[in-house]
């Protein structure tokens, strides 16, 4: 199973927010606890909707919670320069 090229700070954010449990976070965003586990272990990249829901729970932006972990496409790299 190939890991998606998107990393996240979910685990750290949970602990920073009163040691929130995976179950509590799962209920807050409407997914199963197993999906939170999959996200935290980097095996699953969420939809934009779920990413925004998660960011909403922690009161931060999607960019603060998720980051690109793979190689940038060449065109994107050129644009950023």
């Amino acid at each position, binding site marked *: 199973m190939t890991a998606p090229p998107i990393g996240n700070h979910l685990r750290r954010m949970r602990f920073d927010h009163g040691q929130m449990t995976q179950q509590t976070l799962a209920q807050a965003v409407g*997914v*199963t606890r*197993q*999906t939170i*586990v*999959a996200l*935290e*272990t980097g*095996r*699953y990249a969420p939809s934009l909707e779920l990413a925004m829901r998660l960011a909403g729970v922690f009161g931060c932006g999607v960019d603060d919670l998720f980051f690109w972990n793979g190689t940038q496409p060449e065109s994107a790299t050129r644009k950023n320069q």
Partner: protein
Amino acid sequence: MLKVIGFSAAALGLGWVLAWISINYGVSTGWIGAAVLLGWAVAARLRWERLKQHGADPSGPERVVWHRLASAAIGCGHMLTSLAHPSIDLHVGSGNSLATDSWTILAAIVVSALVFHGGDRERDERDRGFAAAGLRVSYTTLIVELLILLFFLGFAPPDLRAPFSHFFIANLLIALIVISALAQYLAQLIAYARDAQAAAGGEQ
């Protein structure tokens, strides 16, 4: 993954054994299948409740797939064994218990589904992804099966097609649908198993 394949094989084998006993010894075995299915449903629920304490339990949607796989595999094993004897009349009250056995197993599937009821069964986007992969496998399986059947019905020599009455073909079509469903649940659970395997080194 081996667990999923082994479980399917065991459930298929159970369905085969039940029909085989029924055909060869004239004993009604549907109630045995029903008892095994119900017993397994209760045991699985209790086991998953224990695993929940360690956070290692399957999600609600995955539990539902396990139940569907068990049901489809037992039903499939039973149906295919019955259909392998085209000379046997599969109507209810035709001197054998195969039809009533099938209906008894079907009733047990409904009751055992209720045993699973109670957990959160709503799929989230990850479950929907696995379900979509399962549906693709199911669709492909069904199309391949139908193509084989169509060619057989159209081009096989008449003596080979002789036992294929409308009633037999109707039962065969049900069996093909059950096989494609079985392929779907198998693919879904393999996807869950691969995911869990990848998480084995992950953190809680």
